């Protein structure tokens, strides 16, 4: 696949159509371009993310889906030489405008990474970290909030008797759910997940997927995944990225049964990628 083929007249980049049955739009990008130095990684991506739903980003490696995800909480800011053109709106406010506080943004838009990254602290301290730095919670309520987050992440029963143990002693799947609990503790509105289950075994993966399914009732979730079945299982809407462009974006059931573009079908059915 070459860029020229992508830009062929037959392939049109679809604007997400507003649908009456969908919930309100929580985040939205408009004509988003992204550059690493002089390399353009995203080309005019416009995508609306619905509230209290799971949006899956799929596409071959290097297609820009992780870059796109990291634009949503300005995580790319920490990489020198990067540049964003276009709008990223959270509740209709452009998060790249000068007066937006990045710290506040990241509190509202949480993130879970591909490789679980618990801090070298105790289980309790890990979950309490976000609460402490944001000073949103009184000391007396800390334990309560930590328990609530661990319960939300379906980890409480496994760790309740060893909250003071080092987090590094947990299994891979438990560590990832701890990272989810840590992100949930500060009550984000949107939760970004970058291949959260790619390093986990099938059973741990299933637990994380069930968790995502439950979490969407209270959070807006955007998940990057390489696993087609996973996208089909957990998401409500799916966006297919290819070479930095959004090729197709639609309801997941439609994307997986009757995609609008031939190239989407080829990717989903495993003909390339």
């Amino acid at each position, binding site marked *: 696949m070459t860029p020229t083929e992508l830009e062929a007249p037959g392939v049109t980049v679809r604007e997400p159509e507003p649908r009456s049955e969908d919930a309100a739009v929580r985040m939205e990008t408009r004509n988003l371009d992204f550059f690493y130095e002089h390399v353009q990684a995203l080309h005019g991506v416009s995508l609306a993310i619905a509230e209290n739903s799971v949006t899956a980003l799929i596409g071959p490696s290097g297609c820009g889906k992780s870059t796109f995800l990291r634009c949503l*909480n300005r*995580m790319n800011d*920490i990489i*020198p030489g990067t540049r964003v053109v276009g709008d990223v709106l959270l509740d209709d406010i452009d998060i790249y405008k000068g007066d937006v506080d990045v*710290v*506040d943004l*990241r*509190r509202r838009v*949480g*993130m879970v*990474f591909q*490789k679980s*990254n*618990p*801090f*070298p*602290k105790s289980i309790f301290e890990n979950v309490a*970290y*976000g609460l402490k*730095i*944001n000073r949103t919670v009184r000391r007396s309520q800390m334990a309560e909030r930590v328990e609530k987050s661990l319960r939300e992440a379906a980890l409480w029963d496994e760790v309740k008797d060893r909250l003071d*143990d*080092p*987090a*590094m*002693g*947990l299994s891979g799947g438990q560590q990832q759910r701890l*990272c989810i609990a*840590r*992100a949930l503790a*500060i009550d984000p509105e949107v939760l970004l997940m970058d291949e959260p289950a790619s390093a986990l075994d099938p059973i741990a993966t299933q637990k994380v997927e069930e968790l995502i399914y439950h979490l969407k009732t209270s959070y807006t979730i955007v998940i990057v995944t390489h696993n087609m079945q996973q996208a089909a299982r957990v998401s409500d809407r799916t966006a297919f990225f290819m070479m930095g462009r959004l090729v197709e974006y639609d309801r997941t059931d439609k994307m997986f049964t009757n995609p609008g573009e031939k190239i989407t079908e080829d990717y989903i059915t495993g003909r390339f990628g």
Partner: protein
Amino acid sequence: MSTLCAAAVVLALLPLGFILFYIVSRGISALNPAFFTKLPKPSGETGGGMANAIVGTLKLIGLASAASVPAGIGAGIYISEFPGSRTSTLVRFCADVLNGVPSIVVGIVAYGLVVLPMKRFSAIAGAVALAIMMVPIITRSTEELLRLVPVSLREGALALGASRARAVWSVVLPSALPGIITGVLIAVARIAGETAPLLFTSFNNQFWAPGLDQPTASLTVQIYNYAISPYDDWHRQAWAGALVLVAIVLAFSMLARVATRRLERMNVG
């Protein structure tokens, strides 16, 4: 091949074994309670000890560490946080140059910087000389260890709304702490045995030095003075002093290992 390597190992360890054996066998006979509790006797009288020199050495180490640890760790953080900047390239280069400056030269600098303006030899001057030697070691080891901390940990903290400074302070630095402490204790072990920079800074003292602005005895200088003296009893005491000095350095190395292990247990679970 493996025989050659084994021979090399023996060759490398032989001097250490030889030094330890020699120092222990010569020094142990002069070690007694008085050595640790009494002041040196005037020349010609037997007995006495090096209590003031032992305390003096610990005082110098403490003062030098108090000055160099914050500076060294701070500079290390700076270099690792702003790796591409001109300043950090300069700081790294300066640290490497400083590391290579002969210790006697550092002593002269401290003499000019502290002794001349104060118009007296003092523990402060000695500590300044030792601190100048410790800073580059701590800076470089801190930088190396901070760089080993995975980026994912920093990103995890930033994604939770931590500022950059907060992420470094509360996540990156604690992750590297076991190694940083080892680096500090290696620096301490390195300067504890220095004589040259003390010769004309803290000088020497046959009595207790009440303040930090007084000439202060140290084990190394005391060993030097006793070893070149013509008295047998002083020679024996010099050996005992060497034994105590080696024990102090060894104690710091062991402390480093224990501290590192304790903290690492928290990190790896």
